């Protein structure tokens, strides 16, 4: 099922495609908070998220006339938002420390998640994921998009999106496990 907009929003999209700044502003105002929230969760940095959102909204305005089906505005705009997040992440990576992929296939004790997972652990684990994996998790579990819509937003086949989500969760599980290991070892001494 594609992500679609209906009724008045579609009218606004069409008007904005023809250069109506008021219509575009109305569309953007209805989405900007959610854009920042989603990009904040992908990038884990509010300033980067605001930059990504600003860039995404400007890209949407610039490229809107090329959108063939106004009803697909939301899927298309999420795709531009994700692209902007990748760009911001790339800039941040060049300016700061690298984010490395985790050894997600490392053997792990399957009962470790039976212990309480707190917010700090999740934050640390999530930050250690690649941006691909953070993105697919945010699309699926924050924006609550079905996997078909995640695939559409990312511009990849459904099977690939599902596989990526699977590996993202597996990577997070590995990160949580790795995070718990030192404490467990310390506790064993």
């Amino acid at each position, binding site marked *: 099922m594609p992500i679609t907009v209906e009724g008045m929003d579609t009218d606004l999209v069409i008007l904005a*495609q023809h250069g109506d*700044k008021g219509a575009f*502003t109305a569309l953007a*105002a209805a989405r*900007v*908070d959610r*854009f*920042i*929230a989603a990009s904040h969760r992908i990038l884990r940095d509010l300033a980067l*998220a*605001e930059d990504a*959102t600003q860039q995404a*909204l*400007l890209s949407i*305005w*610039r490229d*809107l*006339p*090329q959108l063939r089906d106004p009803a697909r505005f939301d899927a298309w705009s999420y795709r531009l938002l994700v692209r902007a997040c*990748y*760009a911001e992440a*790339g800039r941040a990576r060049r300016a700061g420390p690298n984010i*490395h*992929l*985790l*050894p*997600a*296939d*490392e*053997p792990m004790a*399957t009962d470790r*998640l*039976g*212990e*309480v*997972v707190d*917010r700090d652990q999740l934050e640390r684990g999530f930050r250690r994921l*690649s*941006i*691909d994996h953070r993105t697919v998790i*945010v699309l699926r579990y*924050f924006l*609550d998009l079905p*996997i078909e819509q995640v695939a559409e937003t990312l511009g*990849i*086949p*459904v*099977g*690939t999106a*599902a*596989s*990526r*989500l*699977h*590996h993202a*969760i*597996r*990577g*997070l599980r*590995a990160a949580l496990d790795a995070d718990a290991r030192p404490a467990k070892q310390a506790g064993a001494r």
Partner: protein
Amino acid sequence: MSTERDLPRIVQAWLHEDAHEYGDHVLDKVVDLLDSTPQRSPSWLARTFQVMNASFVRYGLAAAAVVVIAIIGSQLIGGSNVGGPGSSPSVAPSETGEPSPSAPVSAEPSIPADGSLPAGSTFVLWNAPGDVAITIKIPDPGWFGEEGGGMLVNGPNFNPPDSVALKVFQLPLYVYGDPCHWSTTTPAAPVTTAAEFTAALEAQTSGDATSQNRAWGITDGLGWEVLLHVPGEAVVAACDGGQFRSWTSDPQQDPDARFHQGPGQIHDLWVGEAQLCCDWGGAVVVFDVVRYPANPDASVDSSAIANVLWDEILSPTATFEKP
């Protein structure tokens, strides 16, 4: 108390905590910049698309000369054991006698900004953290890489009839007994060798996999080539969940996390392992060249691309960087 299976739910709840970012100041900046941000013409995309198509025709098989310059394998402690009930699969040991590396993947997947790959760029093809990753040098324009390195495609989208894509998988994999009725034919244990993988595919009911031994490139060893065809849309629609699934990396995970194939596709699988031909850091690797049946107007000979890809992977100029 949480359990491992609860992780998606836990993540979902955590992501929705404190979700009250406000973007008024961002919106104000955007509105201020609209006047200095001209909109693109609607015809721009169409013109570009035509140029792209012309490019595909022009380059045709030349674009197929994707040069694989390096194989970067990375095996983690204990290998790629995704874990099935009562099973303890492990990848084949490296013939080098070197200890299994425990470092994370040494190369991050490529993330092309718009998916297009300029000539001379490199693209890292991979499937999962810790799996073998292939660094591919792109000699000609016209190739597109999926964000995250999951697939290399000879165009911006993967559509019939001309699209060709390359994916890579790594054993162990759980091969369904019946790809159409996969939900009830999941094996108890995964296959861990090229021979097991090939035999399991050939044994699938409602599948048509056929295999052959082939001499591979720079070595005198043998590998496997497995050819399988996915049925048409009408048949696939009647399969479990409307999907045709030949294998999965982990049947215990999220139901969304299973590989499936599109109606009408042809999968040319090239399976290699250290004992047979070449050392992938001890891994058993499956190269999946996906295409559609040839059509009279096809500008790309997908079968030839498959052969070129494989020849290049094992060409004398290729270097294999052990993890």
